[in-house]
């Protein structure tokens, strides 16, 4: 049931991202600890989650709203027969809500209890390879979802703390 089935466009997109990151081979080899992060965009700003938590990236699809759930839960999507909750990351980060566009993506991440959940993001950018050195604690977080920042090409990327992000009080 959990086996990822043969590549759809979406799966290929994810593979390409991962490959181009390792091809770049950034100068990070000399450091002890290399982190791979999937970088995406919300309200024009970059955010990232560890790639090992990402199962796949899919395009927007029909969403069935679930009554009596917190606003951040956009609803349920059916992914090859699996029923998965979709979290609106914009709403979760208190950044309002927008209509889905061509660039809108759903990042399917693994939760800590062996399930998956979909995160709705404005767009997916690339996979980053960064060293420990590039990561620093966040300056504070209003929504409790960002714990660390990483610098990449003169830009601060907010690293999402998935387990805290997903601790929703229903």
């Amino acid at each position, binding site marked *: *049931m959990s086996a990822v089935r043969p590549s759809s466009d979406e799966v290929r997109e994810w593979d390409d991202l991962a490959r181009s990151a390792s091809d770049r081979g950034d100068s990070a080899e000399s450091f002890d600890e290399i982190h791979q992060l999937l970088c995406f965009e919300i309200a024009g700003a970059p955010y990232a989650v560890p790639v090992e938590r990402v199962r796949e990236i899919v395009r927007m*699809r*029909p*969403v*069935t*709203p*679930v*009554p*009596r*759930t*917190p606003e951040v*839960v956009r*609803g*349920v*999507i*059916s992914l090859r*027969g*699996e*029923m*998965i*909750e*979709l*979290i609106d990351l914009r709403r979760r980060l208190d950044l309002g809500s927008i209509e889905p566009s061509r660039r809108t993506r759903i990042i399917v991440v693994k*939760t800590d209890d062996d*399930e*998956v*959940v*979909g995160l709705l993001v404005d767009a997916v950018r690339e996979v980053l390879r960064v060293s420990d050195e590039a990561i620093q604690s966040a300056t504070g977080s209003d929504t409790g979802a960002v714990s660390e920042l990483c610098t990449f090409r003169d830009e601060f990327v907010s690293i999402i703390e998935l387990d805290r992000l*997903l*601790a*929703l009080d*229903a």
Partner: protein
Amino acid sequence: MATRGGRSRSGRKADQEFVSEAEEILERMREDYADLDDQRAAGGEVEPDLINRLFRSAHSLKALAGMFGLESIQDLAHHLEDILDGLRLGRVSLDSPLIGLIDEAIHTFANLLESVGDEEALAAFNEPVEDLANRIEASAKEASAGGELQSLEIDDALLRALTEYEEHRLRENIQRGRHIMLVVSTFEIMSFDEGLSELSDSIREFGEVISTLPAPGETPESQIRFSLLVASDLNVAELTEAFDFPDAEVESVREGGLAVEAIAEPSASEPAPQAPLASEQESLRSISETVRVDIHKLDELMILVGEFVIQRASIGEIAARLLAQPQNAKIGAELSKIHKSFDRKLKGIQSAVLEVRMVPMRQVFDKVSRVVRSLRRDLQKDVRLEVSGADTELDKLIVEELVDPLMHIVRNSIDHGIESVEERLAAGKAAQGCTKISAFQRGNHVVISVSDDGKGIDRAALLARAESLGLVSADTELSDRETLNLIFVPGLSTQVGVSETSGRGVGMDVVRENVAALGGAVEVESIPDRGTTISMTLPITLAIIQSLIVSVGEHRFAIPINAVHETLLIDTSEIQRSEGRKILNLRGDALLLRSLAEEFELGVSESSEKQFAVIVGLGEQRIGLLVDSLEGQQDTVIKPIQGPVKNMRGFSGATELGDQDAVLVVDIASLLEDALSRKESA
């Protein structure tokens, strides 16, 4: 290195295989032994098949252990096989102390199985196993000493045709004073096996078929004659009368009555004949005819079938669309024909897959009986456990999930329900309490109930505790049912000192939660001083279910059809109100109505004059759900919803309809509960 690692891995796998197969055999032996013990204790005759089954189990275990090179188990099984063989051939009496050794051997096997894979732990058992084997051997010698062969007053030619086992059965029946007869009948060669088994079956209603032998005599070439050696309490005339086989002749071999005073068994000094070949073959066959399957593989199969079912619906839709277009009607008709035949075959696959998953409740009930035995001892309560409906079948998955809730309810019943002997006598009841477990099918559901004749639930104590916890204010009036339902509130237990047995932490709230997760409901009834009944109503299968698709505004929901009693189109003017609650006069009864739009806060106004009421219910409870329209029935596979929001009250999962469209499945049990327990006006 690599090869060694590989070998030990495959060794572990082999061990697992052995243990799981052996456990299955052992489980059967435990059940059969328990039955044997019961029948023996009841003083009646022990079913010969029971002993045969035990013998075959021991034989299978021996063969299995031999295959995996586990000598200690093989050796013990061999000794056990000896006792059982003696028992089935009548060489060992049922009153012999050897019977106790069977129980001991079964226990020892269980211990041995736990240590398989751990050489040291296994070695530690060598001595006790040897000791047990020696004791079996010693008592076997004692038990079989003495006895002499005497005439049975039966034709020698006939006797010679019998195997040792059959001869033993013959003696046994003569000893019990039964009439011995030969039933001779002629069959067509082409279909004699069917005719023969039909005849044997109808005779078995009145007696035992000891042996089936080809009968001599003139027959046309296409026919064959058989004679059945039969023992029955009926005599020739009565038997001929009783069973409906005009072609069969019945002749007496030996009149019943206890004419022969001492029919002794053959002595042990005679060389012990080989166990009959036929039964050996039978034992091997019975193993190979069943296949052990991992339940997850069945789940996968189920899911695939479920997906087929959904796709079949889309094919049907396409066919209908084509039929509606004049230029494509011909292709549409062809497709529709194929769709229909596909549909029929798919239904066949569906029910076959469902059937494979069904297991009798017996497995669970046997586990419960074992726990009750030890509970009786630990709590020092005199309780009798009565079980009925053990053959009722349920989906394996549901049965697994049911063990804990059922165990909890039974523990509660014995621990809290049944009083001490002194209390019972003082209340004018029989000293021995009784807890009954029963299972029966009601439509698409199975009802499993646990009832006792104990003191009933103490309402006052329950209320007092709810008040002290601030769950109920002192001035609220609760109906009797609402009071009883307090037992399902987390943290409430009437017994002040929670005992070891019923434990802490798991309460009736968890039971209700677990049962609800399976799409079922729990109900409680209790009469002071008379007893308590707790019933769980569960769907027979979770796999593919028919759902009614309803819509409210733009939202669609699936309602499991097994919870739907009827649907009505009603005029909104027919809806009456009481305290703001909507009520419908349904053939004289007041039916509570809930609007799904309000229930789920959908923000849809009910403007239309006509609405549909879907009458749903589980157990005895009913409510009507108001929806805008009905979209028809669909086969649905309910999937759990994955994600961080665990508590989606009101929904049991989601199902896919058409392409990528998720539809939420309404959890009727929780809606009923919310609607019927709400005290403030809606």
